[in-house]
């Protein structure tokens, strides 16, 4: 692949609203610090029903997002190394290693280490690793872990599964109420659920705008702008951000402006991105390759509506049980085929992330199934999202070139 060109001739267009992201990140960071100092900061996994702790006035931060920041700063190997020095294997999830490493040496990771938690909230709808990772953080910080267990489902959620998860959500509320001496108010949870729902709807609008040709957003755009819907859904400022964002995206669509200057090939991206090498997408942009859809950012599309606490709990149970990674291989293949059809894509790239087994094991099979069902070719590239030591750029280039030869 060619190197990225100088800025004035960049093949991709920068979003104006990206500037707002920095403000949101700063605000989020300050709020988290304050919550930690006041003794009510929760670390939360990305698939956790964050509406509950927010409605209970807990501060929340997302270690996965902090891992992405560590990756983007290209300090992944060093920070993961701190965890490895504590005995955590290099085979383990690099988000977890980055988190354990930055908790061990926060002063060495000024951007990417999180304020001390008073509570660790894990939901295993994204993987089983989160519990073990949070257990490790609990050993280091003394904060208790609450696990919301959402057993994987195959096609439909059976009543006993639903009842079990529902009881888990009720226990979560009881747990926070008793540990932090507060109570969940009906009006407040409704307000938070409503804000969360509005943010998610706006996010979905932006994603769906990418069905247009040219696509107004590329993968890297979505990976960056997904931050608020992951970290701040349920807040006013999150909704405000997405209102501006959607306005810009729809303006692009209206004027036929694409995320890249010369869109020739449209591909699907599967899995977490290599945060340390987001320029991968920009380099491909220079060859006319855009990624209008991906399975990762489409994971935050659960939409909660409800009229009171009980109905909102029902929504939480359904929404958070049916996330992409909590469904079987068939559901994942269905989703990819649907995205390829809806977004009129020419092929797909599967990033086989060494440290994310839930997402990656099965890709060799699903690649064949997706091609069989859609007729479009795909390629698997291997690496890691944070730990660049296992990202072989030359090998990846060769594989992607082979795919593009078929398409161009």
């Amino acid at each position: 692949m060619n190197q990225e060109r100088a800025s004035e001739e960049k093949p991709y267009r920068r979003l104006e609203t990206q500037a707002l992201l920095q403000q949101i990140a700063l605000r989020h960071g300050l709020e988290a610090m304050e919550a930690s100092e006041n003794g009510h900061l929760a670390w939360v996994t990305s698939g956790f029903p964050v509406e509950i702790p927010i409605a209970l006035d807990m501060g929340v931060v997302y270690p996965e997002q902090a891992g992405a920041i560590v990756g983007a700063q290209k300090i992944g190997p060093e920070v993961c190394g701190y965890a490895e020095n504590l005995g955590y294997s290099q085979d383990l999830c690099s988000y977890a290693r980055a988190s354990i490493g930055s908790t061990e040496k926060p002063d060495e990771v000024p951007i990417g280490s999180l304020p001390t938690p008073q509570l660790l909230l894990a939901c295993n709808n994204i993987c089983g690793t989160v519990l073990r990772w949070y257990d490790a953080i609990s050993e280091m910080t003394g904060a208790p872990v609450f696990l919301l267990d959402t057993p994987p489902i195959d096609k439909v959620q059976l009543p006993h599964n639903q009842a079990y998860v529902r009881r888990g959500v009720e226990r979560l509320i009881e747990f926070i109420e008793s540990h932090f001496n507060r109570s969940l108010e009906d009006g407040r949870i409704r307000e938070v659920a409503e804000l969360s729902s509005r943010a998610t709807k706006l996010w979905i609008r932006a994603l769906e705008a990418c069905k247009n040709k040219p696509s107004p957003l590329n993968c890297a755009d979505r990976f960056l702008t997904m931050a608020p819907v992951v970290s701040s859904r349920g807040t006013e400022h999150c909704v405000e951000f997405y209102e501006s964002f959607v306005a810009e995206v729809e303006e692009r669509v209206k004027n036929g402006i694409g995320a890249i200057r010369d869109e020739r090939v449209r591909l699907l991206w599967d899995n977490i991105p290599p945060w340390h090498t987001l320029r991968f997408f920009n380099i491909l942009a220079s060859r006319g390759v855009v990624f209008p859809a991906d399975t990762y950012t489409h994971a935050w599309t659960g939409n909660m509506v409800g009229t009171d606490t009980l109905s909102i709990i029902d929504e939480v149970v359904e929404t958070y049980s049916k996330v992409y990674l909590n469904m079987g291989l068939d559901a994942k293949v269905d989703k990819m085929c649907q995205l390829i059809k809806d977004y009129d894509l020419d092929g797909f790239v599967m990033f086989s992330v060494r440290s994310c087994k839930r997402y990656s094991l099965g890709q060799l099979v699903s690649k064949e199934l997706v091609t069989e069902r859609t007729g479009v070719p795909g390629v698997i590239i291997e690496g890691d999202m944070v730990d660049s030591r296992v990202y072989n750029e030359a090998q990846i280039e060769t594989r992607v070139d082979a795919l593009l030869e078929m398409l161009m």
Partner: protein
Amino acid sequence: MSYEGVIEQSIAGLKELLKSGEEIIGYIYPHVPLELFMAHGFTPSLVRALPGVASGFEESLQTFACSYIRNLYSQRANGQFLTLAGLLFPGNTCDSLQNLGDIWSVRFHDDRVLRLTYPVIRYNQDDSATKFLAEEIRLLSEKLSKLYNRPFLAENYDAAVDFVQEFHNGTQFLYSARVIQPEIISYSEVVRLVRTFLTIPTASSMSEIKETVSMVQNKADELGLSDSIETVQKAILSGDYTKVKLPDDLVSPRIVIAGGMVEPQAIASLMNEIPNFSESFIVLDLLSFGFKTVFTKSPTKSDDPFIAMAKSVLSAPGEPTHEGLSYRMNAMKDLLENLSIQGLIVCEQSFCDPDQFEAPSIEKAACELDVRTIRLPLDPELSDRGRIETRIQSFLETLE
């Protein structure tokens, strides 16, 4: 008997069963309700990774898949699996096994893939986890009835509860006897009996266990150790070691083997290869296919069968696949401290999330008690056998 010999014996036993017309349901995760399969007239058989399995996984699994599932897949791809009526995969235990079940269904679509999904929570102080698992077991039971036209028979279930209970009682006694006097019976022999029963749970494998128990019981009576053994068995089951009194003349070093789905027989075979050291240094293992299966409580007949089986499965001592790291570490520390353990060998399956996440905590907990540890990354093929043996030897030398 060598490790390879034990494997051959198990396979031969399975073949004989198949020849006699028995239908076998294989299972991978050790904590399954054996009684359920027996109630439906099946023979449940624990399917395990084997040494010496050539590659074969590459078409479907990446190299970073856990070495255990790679081995299982390769066995199947290479035609090394016997004909099973069905194969049960666990759900919600670890990501690798979760995804392997899906991959298996696609690649080997003639195989009957069954699934039992487990709750991860354990300490929630309500019965939601038990109810969830009981319903999963009931649905599995319905599936067995429908797929194979073999109903759940109450009399079979009752007999199975007694039968499996005998296995637990007998092997718990043997494990406990070794805690008091490791020379009373070799570790290899105990884990061979456990392995044989889990592979072929028949009257003949049970009678071998009973004969061995009787022999050890006699020896223990002669040595006046029977009461101490019983006390250890109760202490391990209850977690209360206050009544345990170990003999004054314990032989050092006393070693415990920690880890997950690692083959106890493989560990015994490694230890036996080390010059000047004996496997009698192994006092106990805490492995999934050993201790954690043996010290699972049996279902009680007074409960509804599905609730009873769920309670039994959930009573298995701490697996890193579920919540409760601090409970597990405290339980392990109690055990190490009260059973006078000097060394801990921590086995980690390569690319196994639960093992590799737990290992630093185990090391730390042991260190707090001044129990020395060594961590051994292993794969089922023992591909680095020479180096592993050298490391164990060096470790044991530090304990002398």
